[in-house]
């Protein structure tokens, strides 16, 4: 039981990074990033490649994953989404574009990293024992980095000038331009940050669960579940949704036959959203 709770927390913490990335891109750009899962997978593979193929230290792999994903986010905004938003008046255009980007990234991942499932040994070996619960050191490490990143991100959004500008854009784009904020530049920043967060999660979780090139869609679906549960565009909602999903998934996998868990999660989510369509924290952006 305690073991499952610990697993839930580790999972929830990393899911929070994924959900925050998705909700940030949605709040700033009004884009539903269907390529989010593929960005996660790319982050995982880059870390795998750095560690297992190039034999570099984990820090290098982690930083490489984040940097590459931030660049992928920036470039996607600059070359694809900015133009699509400008020339199109229909919201479906950016959704189709994101779906296209997902396919593109998935093919590229397959091309570069192959179709094999890739895992790696824990980053740190050993096991901690806390109050009678065994926590593998590798997992504790992943939890700590995810927690630190989450705190860092929330602090950035809440207390810095660019963070404030991002929150402002999420609430009112035009009025924020009137305060002197370059909306294009900050849109790119939001997209880069959002992609970077999911790349970070991909890098961290690749050290616990393996990655494979086909994982992206499943991760995207999870990300959308978390954001819908928590409330789209809300920081606290993304975190809440992530932990709810982390717990449901860990407990489900621990106590039920494999495929039942997600069936129940989907059913539960549909019922929940019927009664509370705005999600747990349901407000535009907090």
């Amino acid at each position, binding site marked *: 039981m305690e073991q499952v709770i610990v697993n839930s927390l580790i999972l929830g913490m990393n899911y929070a990074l994924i959900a925050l990335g998705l909700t940030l891109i949605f709040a700033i750009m009004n884009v539903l990033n269907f390529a989010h899962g593929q960005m996660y997978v790319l982050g995982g593979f880059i870390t795998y490649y750095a560690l297992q193929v190039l034999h570099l230290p984990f820090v290098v792999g982690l930083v490489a994953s984040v940097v590459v994903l931030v660049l992928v986010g920036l470039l996607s905004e600059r070359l694809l989404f900015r133009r699509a938003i400008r020339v199109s008046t229909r919201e479906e255009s950016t959704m189709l574009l994101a779906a296209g980007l997902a396919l593109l990234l998935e093919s590229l991942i397959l091309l570069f990293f192959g179709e094999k499932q890739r895992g790696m040994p824990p980053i740190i070996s050993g096991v901690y024992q806390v109050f009678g619960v065994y926590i593998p050191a590798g997992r504790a490490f992943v939890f700590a980095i995810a927690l630190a990143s989450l705190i860092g991100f929330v602090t950035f959004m809440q207390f810095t000038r660019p963070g*404030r500008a991002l*929150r*402002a854009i999420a*609430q009112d784009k*035009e009025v924020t*331009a*009137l*305060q*002197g904020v*370059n909306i294009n530049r900050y849109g790119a920043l939001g997209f880069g940050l959002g992609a970077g967060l999911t790349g970070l999660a991909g890098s961290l979780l690749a050290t616990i669960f393996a990655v494979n090139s086909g994982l992206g869609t499943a991760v995207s679906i999870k990300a959308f579940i978390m954001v819908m549960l928590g409330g789209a565009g809300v920081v606290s909602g993304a975190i809440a949704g992530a932990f709810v999903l982390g717990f449901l998934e860990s407990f489900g996998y621990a106590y039920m036959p494999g495929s039942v868990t997600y069936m129940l999660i989907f059913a539960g989510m549909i019922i929940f959203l019927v009664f509370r369509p705005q999600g747990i924290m349901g407000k535009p952006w907090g």
Partner: protein
Amino acid sequence: MSSYFEARNLDVYYDKVKALSDVSMVLGEGDIVAIIGTNGAGKTTTLRAFTGLTRIATGEIWYQGKRIDQLNPDQIVGLGISMVPEGRHIYPLMNVRDNLLMGAFLRRDKAEVKRDLERMCERFPFLKERMRQQASTLSGGEQQMVAISRALMARPKLLLMDEPSLGLAPKVVREIARSILAINREDKVSVILVEQNSRMALKLSSRAYVLETGRVALEGASEELVNNEDVRRLYLGA
């Protein structure tokens, strides 16, 4: 030869619908100029054109000897033109302090920004206790004052105000009117004031423009417009 601020022969379209045609306006440094007109006359569109939110189809806009009609909104703020938008448009989910700090986004003089926060509290004393409060919890009048303060935090030299009296009680309208005069005289900010409350606008301004269906129907000294038969009948209900 050129004025402090000047718009020449502006045409603006929304898709194919013409919203402004051949609108020209001038403002001298330190003036308060009013724009009055009924619903849909094009007042907001005019201010949107001045701030770069809406692109003009033809015409030119000049500010301090510089042509600004091809600039983006964020560049125009940088030149010293701020706007208080129609309907206030404060950030509802931010606290008052963050709202005001957004106004100072382009400023790097941190100490002065801090001092300006205090100055805003002197002008609108209610701000002091509300700094940490979410802006959506404020009353309409208070929100309007936050919107005005936010614009002032940029230290503008020209302030564009779109119906600051909209939906406010008479007593609050008088307070807003007083603060517009104070901003103009004490802070030396030129003002373009858009109002449906024509009486207030003509009282505060030295010159005024009357917009009708996207055209300048009348212009002149506010004192004279107050006594103009048509203006009295159509806009002052007298």
